[in-house]
Each structure stands twice: as structure tokens, then as C-alpha cells.
């Protein structure tokens, strides 16, 4: 019981200070949002302006932009702590390594969501999403975003721990991250497309399979992370 309380306090401490760091360095959050918004606006032009009206590309575009946001966020998840020596200090204290990992996952989920909500607005405006689609998508897009963020955040935090103190971090992160995260991305894109009445889909996989993937991936990687938390941060 006592160790559970200590674990929760440590987890909250990591989450709280990660959030506070965003508040004191707003430029990083605003910069990512501006970059993603520019992408959202410019992306359709790569297909030619006549295609902007087509519903088929809008979901793919939204999640592709999300991938850029994810890449920018996950790549520097432990950078601040590693470069300032805070990570080393934390590892020498009583802070549980699994709490450190869990705190960072909680932070990624919230951080990504804080960027995705304004991006959703940009997407609705620039991709001519009809009213009917917004109404039908709204109840499904939020849980989907949460699960996407949880899956992505769990994989990202796990890999960021492993590579935090590696000199090959910049090369290793994308090489390891994208293949593992692909199933989460496919699940999110497919579910969003299935849920949109404006999109006519050919016969294919049922939506429930994608929900299973969106639920299963974070569960799997979270378990691996907690079980291997000692080894994850070891030099």
C-alpha cells in the first residue's frame, strides 16, 4: 500500500514537471502546432487542388499530420531530462523507473491531445468536412485519439527510455518507432474512415478488429515497459 502511494506520487511528479516544462517553454508547443497546421494547410496541394473536395484523402491526411506531431514529440521525450542531468539524478533517487515511464506516457497522451484538438479544427475547415461527418465522428474521434495517443505514447516512451542515453538516438528512434507504431496508425485511419458516412468503403476488415489493435498495443507495450523498467534505463 505504502509503496503504491509512493509510486503514484513519483508518477505524478514526473507528469507534473513535464507539463510545467511545456508551460515555461511555450515555444516548443506552439512551434509544433504551427508546423502541423502549416502541413494541414499545404498537404492537399500536393494532390492538386481539385482533390481537396474528396473525402477519401481527408482521414489519411489528418493522421499523417498527426504522425509528424508524434515524431516531434516522442523524439525529444527525455531530451530535457537527459541533457540537464535530471534523468541521472532521478535514477539515483527512490523514484521508481516504472513510475518514471508511466509519468512520461501520461504526459505524451495529454500533450498530443492538446495539439490534436486545435488541429482537428484546422482539419474541419481546410478539408471541407461536412456537418454530418463531424456529428458522426465526434463521439468516436475522441476515444480514438486517446487510444492512438496511448499506443503511440507507450511505444514512444519505451523506445525513448532505451535510446535516451545513446549517441545513436536520432537514428535509432525512427527506425524502431515507426515499424512498431504502424499498427496503431492503421487502426486509427481505418476506424476513422469506417465511421465517416461520407466515405464509401469497399468490403474489408471489421471495425472491431481495429479497436482490438488500438486497445491491445498499449496494453502490450505498457506491460513490457513495467516489467522491463529496470533494464530500460540501464547503461
Amino acid at each position, binding site marked *: 500500500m505504502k509503496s503504491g502511494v*509512493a509510486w503514484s*506520487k*513519483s508518477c505524478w*511528479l514526473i507528469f507534473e*514537471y513535464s507539463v*510545467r*516544462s511545456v508551460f*515555461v*517553454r511555450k515555444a516548443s508547443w506552439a512551434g509544433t502546432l504551427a508546423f502541423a497546421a502549416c502541413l494541414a494547410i499545404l498537404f492537399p496541394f500536393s494532390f492538386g487542388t481539385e482533390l481537396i473536395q474528396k473525402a477519401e484523402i481527408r482521414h489519411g491526411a489528418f493522421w499523417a499530420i498527426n504522425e509528424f506531431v508524434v515524431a516531434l514529440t516522442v523524439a525529444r521525450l527525455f531530451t*530535457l531530462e537527459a541533457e*540537464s*542531468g*535530471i534523468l*541521472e*539524478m*532521478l*535514477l*539515483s*533517487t*527512490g*523514484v*521508481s*523507473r516504472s513510475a518514471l515511464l508511466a509519468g512520461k506516457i501520461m504526459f505524451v497522451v495529454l500533450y498530443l491531445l492538446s495539439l490534436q484538438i486545435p488541429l482537428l479544427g484546422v482539419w474541419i475547415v481546410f478539408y471541407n468536412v461536412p456537418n454530418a461527418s463531424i456529428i458522426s465522428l465526434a463521439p468516436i474521434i475522441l476515444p480514438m485519439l486517446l487510444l492512438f495517443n496511448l499506443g503511440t505514447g507507450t511505444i514512444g516512451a519505451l523506445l525513448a527510455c532505451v535510446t535516451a542515453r545513446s549517441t545513436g538516438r536520432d537514428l535509432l528512434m525512427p527506425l524502431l518507432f515507426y515499424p512498431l507504431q504502424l499498427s496503431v496508425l492503421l487502426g486509427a485511419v481505418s476506424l476513422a474512415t469506417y465511421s465517416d458516412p461520407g466515405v464509401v468503403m469497399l468490403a474489408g476488415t471489421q471495425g472491431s478488429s481495429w479497436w482490438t489493435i488500438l486497445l491491445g498495443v498499449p496494453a502490450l507495450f505498457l506491460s513490457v515497459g513495467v516489467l522491463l523498467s*529496470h533494464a530500460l534505463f*540501464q*547503461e
Partner: protein
Amino acid sequence: MTILKCEEVELKVGYKTLIRNFSLELSSGESLAVVGPNGLGKTTLLRTLCGVGKPYRGRVFLGEQMLWPQSDDNKPSARLCYLASQPALFLDHSVSANLEFYVRSHAMDWDVQLGKEALGSVGLGGRLQQTARTLSTGQKRRLTLAFMIIVKPELLLLDEPTNGLDTEGVSLCLQLLSELRRESKSAILIATHDQQLIDWCGKAVDLKRWAP
């Protein structure tokens, strides 16, 4: 009471052996300076003793708890305090936020009044809301001294603690360490080249003895 015990520890960086068969015992209220030329492994030794680094061979105990080889619950004691040669700070956060983080990460509750007193006693009383980035090197070091005042660790591992401190700062550091050793019975291990600190410790081990 023995706080720190190392048995036959061997440290490597890559394939290079730094020290071999290093053994040490440190009891509460005792202080010891670790000296030796640059690159011999003083910092690596301290990082290993606090659980950040990993020895190639040997055993390390913190009190009754075995830190190396890894046991089921090998995370270091909450009452261990390791201060690296470069102060570990959130540079964009305030002085008081940094102190709060440090205190809470040592599983202690944050007491604002206690924090103010600790900062006051290291000469940072008027700088609570100042961003850590704007502090001088010596002031950052003083902030890390404030951590020690609050945490009162059982084992204190210090890597070049007087780096960047002026004469007054060095005296303050020695005074604080003396208080911790006397009143809190902290065991103190210091990696240093500073003769004043070596003299204060009273005992010193030269790592050259264990170099291969």
C-alpha cells in the same frame, strides 16, 4: 552502522578497465575523499555507487540493501543524495520549483517554509522566483547545497562539490557538510581535487591504487 559497502568492484568504460578489486566501507557520520588523476574513474565510481552506472564485477551494498548485482528491488534508497559535478537543474524553472522537484523526488513532502529557509541559508533567499538559467555557476551550486539541507541524506555522494564556488561558497559548503556529518550522521563520499575538501574529510583514498 555501515551505510555503504563495496566489495571487489571492477569498473569499465567500454573495454577499458578503470579500477579493479576496489573495496570500501563507509559508516554513518564518516567522510571520505576519493582522489586521483583525471579519467581514472572517480565520477564513474560515484555513478555506480548511486545506482546510475553499472559495475563490471563486484558487489555494492547500501545499508542492508544489495544494489549490485541487481536484486529484485535494487532501486537506491530514497535517502541517498548524489550531486553530479554539473548541477542537475530544470533551467527554465524557478529556483523554488527546482528545489521542490528535488525534495519530492526524494519521496519527501514539499514544505514551502522549509524551502525558503534552506535557500536563505545558502544565500539565495531573495531569488525564489528567479529562473535557474539566470543563476551564476556558483549560485547553481549553492542551490544544490540547499537540496542537501532539506533532504538530510544518510549517504551523500558529491562530485567536485566546490567547482564554481567562491571562497565564501566553499566555506558555506564545508559548514553544511560538517552539520550534516555531525547532526544527521550522514556518510559523505566526495570525489575531488580540492585540498581543502580532502583535509576536511580527514581520510582519502587514491584510486591509482586500484588502477590496472
